[in-house]
């Protein structure tokens, strides 16, 4: 039991970290960034290149991954989202194309074979038969810290309130003197940074390979759909629902079924309560 609890918390923390950047864009910009997984991809490879190939300190590798992710987010906003002026379908499709493009670029530069990252924080502790790798523990704690500070940021700073305002009523935000473009760009930059850092943790636990953007995207989609838009705490809760669902399925039913229930959950939630468990009736 304790073992399942520990594994569930670790995996859920990772999932929350993965989903938060996606939630942010979906809540504020109201667009589906299908290239979100590409931040994780690029973040993971950036870390790999700087820390594992060039031998820079690990912290520098994570920071550089964040910076590249941030730059990628800004570029995406400036080159794709802005020119398409709120045409959601076009943005979704172009980000999908962009994701495939970035995947091919990674193949071109690094090759197709998968790579294993060194743990960011080496070491492992056993508790009640469950192994707790320090890297995962750190990712889980980091995800809690990041999500809660993000929640505080959004609720209690001018910038954060402006982000909420833009997401709820664009005209209302404009006449309050909020520059939606700046807010959106900031959101995209933040989302890119968070995504790239999540990518380092995700890849350091699993592996680095060009197709690795799909799985996190699906996880992020699941968390956002089930949680509903605009709810950061919802993201945290649902990441734990999805994570625990997977761990419980693996432990008590069959490991190969772990993804099935997540997908079923998405479909059921969408059909039964389209706004998600913690979302608002705004469809």
């Amino acid at each position, binding site marked *: 039991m304790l073992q399942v609890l520990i594994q569930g918390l670790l995996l859920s923390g990772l999932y929350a970290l993965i989903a938060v950047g996606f939630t942010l864009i979906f809540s504020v910009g109201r667009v589906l960034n299908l290239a979100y997984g590409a931040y994780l991809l690029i973040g993971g490879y950036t870390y790999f290149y700087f820390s594992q190939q060039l031998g820079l300190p690990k912290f520098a590798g994570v920071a550089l991954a964040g910076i590249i992710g941030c730059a990628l987010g800004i570029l995406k906003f400036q080159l794709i989202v802005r020119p398409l002026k709120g045409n959601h379908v076009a943005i979704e499709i172009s980000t999908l194309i962009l994701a495939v493009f970035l995947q091919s670029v990674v193949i071109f530069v690094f090759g197709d074979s998968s790579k294993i990252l060194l743990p960011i924080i080496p070491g492992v502790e056993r508790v009640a038969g469950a192994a707790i790798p320090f890297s995962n523990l750190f990712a889980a704690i980091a995800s809690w810290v990041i999500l809660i500070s993000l929640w505080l940021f959004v609720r209690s700073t001018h910038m954060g309130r402006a982000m909420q305002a833009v997401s709820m009523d664009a005209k209302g935000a404009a006449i309050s003197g909020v520059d939606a473009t700046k807010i959106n760009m900031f959101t995209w930059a933040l989302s890119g940074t968070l995504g790239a850092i999540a990518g380092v943790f995700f890849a350091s*636990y699993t592996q680095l390979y060009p197709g690795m953007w799909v799985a996190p995207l699906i996880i992020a989609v699941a968390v956002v759909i089930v949680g509903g838009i605009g709810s950061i705490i919802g993201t945290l809760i649902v990441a734990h629902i999805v994570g625990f669902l997977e761990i419980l399925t693996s432990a008590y039913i069959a490991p190969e079924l772990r993804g099935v229930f997540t997908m079923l959950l998405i479909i059921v939630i969408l059909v039964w309560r389209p706004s998600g468990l913690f979302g608002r009736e705004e469809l």
Partner: protein
Amino acid sequence: MKFGKILKAVTAAGVISAASFATAAYAEIKVGFIGSLSSDTGLSTLRGAEMAIEELNAKGGVLGEKIKLVTADTQEDVTEGIKAYEYLAETEEVDFIISGSIDDVSLGWIPRMQEFQIPTLDTWTSSISIIDMVVQDPEVMAPYFMNIASDEALATLYINFGADVLKKQMGWNSVVILAEDTGFGQAITGLVTEAISPVAGIEVKETIIYDVGTVDFAPIFAKAQATGADFIYQVSSVNSQVISSQYVKLQVPMPMTGVNVSALGMEYWEDTGGAGGGISTLSPLPSVGFKLDPTSQAFVERYQAKYKSRPVIPHFNGFNAYYGLTQAMAAAEEAGGFKDAKKWSAAMEKQDLKLELDGKLWLRYGFWGKDEVEEVTKRTYPHNARFDLSAPYDDAQPSMVVVQWKEDGSVGVVYPFEYATTKFEIPSWIKK
């Protein structure tokens, strides 16, 4: 007016390009490579073939003609594999195909091979079901050869390892099998489960199948531990460095051995970032942890001089491609080319290359005859690499060995004992 002109120009360009497509130049022997160009194993086959072709061309080519290599990438995807085979057969109109495809991809394009009847040599897939096709339909499968020992040989050797080392030396009595959900995984799991209990006296507690896309192995290892078995037997060919690196990162307190394809290459240590110690795997012969015979060593040296990128040493299938392509060309010399696939096939069946190391047979590239029955498994293996399953392995190579990566990054052979360079050990974090 201008529009009309442009239309004309476009039409003309279209006709020219279509015409250039229709005429294929034909003054050479064309070899097609099919496999994944971005995986180390795929590249091994490709480079082994390139080296062989370079040497043959330096000696004047085959049948007085130069050999040219064209490549088609499968991306380890079945549909892409079929497209790639068609491209080689119909656009490039190659004479001979050398394949570094994985099992599932080979199974996908085999029907195309049957249709086009192009001499084809597989260097990587070990799928016994393809050999079964040769048994059942020798006519249609005549142009097909596989110069790696099949799954059966692999499993049989493992059972012997189980009896001699795991049971006798380590004193382990029960196993939990952790197998990936692939054709390869199923085949090996089936063969091992059938034989390990009656032959080696090791009880199979449970078989856990996992998806190749699994991200987090912690619950799977927990499940394996819960069975109370003495050790884990892993069967993984796709993304296998993930499971082994997580085994190390999680410091699973249970020994693990089995088949881990990524541990077959020199790059394994670098790829796992050093998190790969303790992993042991079955391996075909010219692999990591070996001293090579002079011919193969010379090949490796030329290889390393030519290619600066990974894989730094060809995988065993690189050797297979190198020797196999040379044999295929020799067969073509004898059969007067590749056009008559039956004739070439007959000539290929007779190929037999024996390489010695320290005065003993160490590597043999030959094929089982149509009606030859292998003694241990009591079945036939037409067009499959000749292997020898019982010591002293004087008929052919043992086909498979067990190698183990140590925690210091070194690698050595642990079984069979005649080939062993080091002893089988369990990882340091497991309390004895």
